[in-house]
């Protein structure tokens, strides 16, 4: 039983990281229909921004983190402005945008590997690394912070989407882009906003992973893959779905090895995903996926 509780807790931490990536990715995908795999590069960039802020610019950790999140949001926005919008203006298909995004992911990851080496760059996080013992469960303060931050980020995002004018504009574009355009919503600006917010959500995930085990150039690919899987499981267009999908994948990955050898970890996650998506193509809460959207 102790093992199950420990796996549950570890799964919740990993799931929170996936969820942060997934709600950001889901927001972007739901709004723009871009299969933005370069989200993984934003995840990695955020980690290196924070690392560079702390070790090269000698900023205090909280300042470095806040600046890194802002810089990551700007990076996401620039990716849309300078790459995707240019492609769309020239009438590119969605597949071309996906391939461009994949190209950008590989390019940025390799540039990071050249600049910082492929080795993990460890950050100094002081007492956050201390272990906390809750009954039979062992976590660090950083892990607890990860879960708390994810809940706060999720709540803030939902509040923003429901209450604010810009949030409502995002929802309008997400559910009916043509209708939104006819009532005078500027699609391009809404897209930019979705990229900035989506990237600002991936950033803490990247930074938290870097704080735990070091910033690494190629770490984002797995996270964006799992984020997209989480979004599809949760139901495209649904932020609660993406949150649930992300947490579910983290739990599955960890609880899955309760009775099976650990080399099955990835096979379990993706196997369950395949079965799930065949049985329930709309995911937990989603609308039907139209072929035109992929």
């Amino acid at each position: 039983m102790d093992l199950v509780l420990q796996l549950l807790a570890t799964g919740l931490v990993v799931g929170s990281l996936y969820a942060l990536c997934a709600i950001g990715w889901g927001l972007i995908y739901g709004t723009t229909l871009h299969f933005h795999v370069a989200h993984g590069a934003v995840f990695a960039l955020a980690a290196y921004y924070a690392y560079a802020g702390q070790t090269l610019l000698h900023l205090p950790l909280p300042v470095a983190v806040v600046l890194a999140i802002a810089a990551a949001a700007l990076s996401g926005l620039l990716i849309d402005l300078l790459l995707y919008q240019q492609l769309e203006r020239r009438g590119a298909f969605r597949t071309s945008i996906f391939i461009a995004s994949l190209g950008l992911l590989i390019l940025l990851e390799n540039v990071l590997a050249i600049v910082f080496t492929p080795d993990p760059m460890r950050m100094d996080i002081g007492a956050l690394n201390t272990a906390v013992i809750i009954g039979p469960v062992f976590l660090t303060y950083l892990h607890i912070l990860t879960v708390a931050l994810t809940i706060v980020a999720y709540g803030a995002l939902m509040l923003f989407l429901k209450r604010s004018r810009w949030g409502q504009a995002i929802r309008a574009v997400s559910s009916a882009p043509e209708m939104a355009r006819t009532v005078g919503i500027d699609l391009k600006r809404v897209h930019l906003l979705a990229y900035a917010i989506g990237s600002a959500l991936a950033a803490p995930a990247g930074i938290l992973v870097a704080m735990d085990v070091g910033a690494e150039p190629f770490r984002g690919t797995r996270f964006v893959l799992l984020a997209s899987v989480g979004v599809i499981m949760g139901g495209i267009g649904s932020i609660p779905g993406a949150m649930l999908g992300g947490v579910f994948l983290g739990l599955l990955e960890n609880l899955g090895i309760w009775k099976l050898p650990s080399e099955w970890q990835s096979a379990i996650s993706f196997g369950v995903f395949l079965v799930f998506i065949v049985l329930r193509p709309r995911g937990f809460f989603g609308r039907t996926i139209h072929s035109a959207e992929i």
Partner: protein
Amino acid sequence: MLKRIALLVSLFALAATPAAAQPAPIKIGAILPLTGSGASYGVWMKGGAEMAAEEINAAGGIGGRRLEVIYEDHAADASKAVNAMRRLVEVEKVPFTLTSYSAPTLAIQPIGSQNKVVMMNGGGQSDNLANKDYLYNNIPVVSNEVGVLCDWLTKEKKFKAAVMIVANDEAGRNSAKSFRERFGAGGGKVLAEEQIALDGNDFRAQLAKLKAQGGDLLFISSYGRNVAIVADQARELGITLPMAATSWVQIPEVLKSKGAQGLLTTRLPFNPESAFARKFKERYKTDAGFFAVQYYSGTRIFAAAADAAMKKNAGKLDGEGVKNAIESIKAFDTISGKLVFQPNHAAVMDIEVGVLKGGKVEVEKVIKAAQ
């Protein structure tokens, strides 16, 4: 315009020829973990080879020819090692290469053997590296070390039930296999094992599973910085079991890691007070380690063998000549003592056992090599 450039180039080449009248340098390869989870080994390996080459050249080279080492990075990846080996064989036409790590070395061995290029491995320890054509290991295979470790753990430290975390690669699996056999032979039992990726960095799920198995010892069958991650995360998860490992953990990341203190480990002989270690520190501004000596010695062994081969074959140097010279010399003088290649193409060495305390291994006992 093009013609003019061609003319200039050929003139330049003509002008350059007399200056290059010295004999062509002898090129050898070195396929090392320069990046990735084992980059710390790479710093030592490259430094050791570089220092040997510099000393050899300062003393007039090999048979009057300069020695030039071409460094390649395998980053623990066998396919990268194969690409590097192909380049060394086909483009650089080397007669000899230093190599490292078990999986990359096993992957390049057929290429070396087909093309008659001698490979000298000073780092990889899988038992499968023994008895291979054109491959020599100036390091003992891991079963020697694991045998010594298990004797000590079962007979003197009285451990009975181990759990194991195993890197999912040639070296990790091979050392785990030896551990199962030898720990069992000493009356112990391996209760459970979990595999981890060498380039991974979150092993908490695997460790949580092992924790639930109980036991009185955690054997870490892995290497590179992930041993430090395993040790730290094990302690973070409240695993209080003593941990054991082989000499692969003799890198700064592990020695300095908080979680790894108290580790029961084997060590291959290395004297940090030696003249070599002092010179290394002066040159590279970092402490030397066992693997620096290994690749220094590997390069020196090549120089001795190449010198003998050239003397025997009227100045001609090729891989076959180097191989024959190694076979006939067999015992080489190195800075860490006499190194004798055994019939299985591997070396034997004294093996120390001890406990990691305050960043240093306190040696409890030395088991002399049976030459």
